[in-house]
């Protein structure tokens, strides 16, 4: 194997930025650390979008394959490691949910309602995460229609056009609503930071 995990350079935990730079240089152990650092958040995200464990695991694997092959594209000046990785994960998950949708009759997927989030002991542990709650309280500051629009876009993987149709509002209104929702969320996160 090319790169065993070294026991010598363990003095300091490298940052995620550094680990991604190491990935770009072909460091497999660094990649494994990146995976372990972000896989729970990534899987949680993929599950929310895809609502199917098998599909979410496929998306997770695809996304981290892309993280490995495109690590050299990561620019720490432009985004945090977390934001860069979650962008990839989200896009993979949304691509899949749209493919799945295309395979079924239109309308059926979006109307499917909430499915249960897997609730094993591990999921319970991770919900103790403080960051989780901080985001939730910021989301609570949004208006219900803002939250709804954000949920349809980010969690359901709908396009702006689909959202406008679903909510029976003009496309411009859907766009404005999403923009305002994201701006508001940003303000709230800054307040609680």
């Amino acid at each position, binding site marked *: *194997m090319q790169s065993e*995990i070294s*026991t010598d350079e*363990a003095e300091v*935990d490298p940052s995620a930025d550094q680990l991604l730079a190491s990935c770009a240089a072909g460091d*497999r152990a660094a*990649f494994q*650390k990146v*995976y*372990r650092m972000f*896989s*729970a*958040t990534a*899987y*949680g*995200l993929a*599950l*929310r979008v895809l609502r199917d464990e098998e599909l*979410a*695991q496929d998306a*997770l*694997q695809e996304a981290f*394959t892309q993280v*490995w092959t495109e690590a050299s594209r990561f620019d720490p000046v*432009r*985004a*945090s490691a*977390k*934001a860069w990785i979650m*962008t990839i*994960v*989200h896009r993979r998950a949304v691509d899949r949910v749209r493919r799945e949708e295309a395979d079924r009759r239109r309308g059926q997927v979006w109307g499917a309602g909430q499915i249960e*989030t*897997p609730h094993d*002991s*591990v*999921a*319970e*542990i*991770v919900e*103790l*995460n*403080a*960051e*989780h709650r901080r*985001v939730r309280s910021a989301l609570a500051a949004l208006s219900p229609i803002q939250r709804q629009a*954000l949920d349809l*876009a*980010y969690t359901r*993987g709908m*396009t*702006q056009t689909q959202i406008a149709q679903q909510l029976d509002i003009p496309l*411009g209104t859907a*766009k404005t609503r*999403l*923009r305002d929702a*994201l701006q508001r*969320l*940003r303000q709230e*996160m800054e307040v609680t930071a």
Partner: protein
Amino acid sequence: MTNQEIDPTTDPHDLVTGYLLDALDQHELQRFTDHLGDCDYCQQAIADLSETVADLAGTSRVVPPQSVEDKLMASLFGDEVPAPSTSADTTAAVEQGESVGEIIQLDSRRRWVWPAAAAAAFVLLAGLVTTMGLNQSNNEAQLLADGQAQLVLDLAASPDAQSMKMNLAEGEATVVVSAATNQAGVLATDLPAPPTGQKYHVWTIKDDGSVTSAGSFAPDSDGSAALILQTQLADATGFAVTVDDPSLTQPTSAPIAAVNF
């Protein structure tokens, strides 16, 4: 097709939020990416808002099964597919433990497997510990360090990991135990700050009734804390938490919470 037509009512700047949320169709996405390279406004908007979008991702962490990591590594690197057996898992965990060096001291000489029935029989008990106070050797474990939370989450991802909630008057604490890796950890949130000079102190209760320190921690400003416990699971029967002086080798006050099995 209409894809080639320009919609005069749509300003491409308008698409930036949809781009950030992956809410553009292919036609819009193409238009926007063509536009983005020349538009400082949209580039700045993406820089400003991408962290907020990433925050949305953080609302639900779920540890994926180990098989995903195994498949991923195998597909990328080919060689060395870890077999899904307990011994392989233990080996992997030991490697990982070594990679983070001194933080965890794994007892690699003494691997053993927790009986499944005993692990399954973990139950919550509050305030049960009445056997404290017997002599036991000092076990200094001051393990608070960056990355502890991730280590505990990694531990929770072990296939055999068991978790137990501790009943606390204020805040929440969960103990994670992995018999295969002989490790235990604690994750806590919303804990009140301990009095000056004191910390949350975790104790291992052994099967002979004796008690040893498994480490202590102070919550951060959010009230969150994570700690890999310094403990041997083989002869442990439970854990208890006190609030006291972290240098104590034996508890001097009643536990505020305990788990037993």
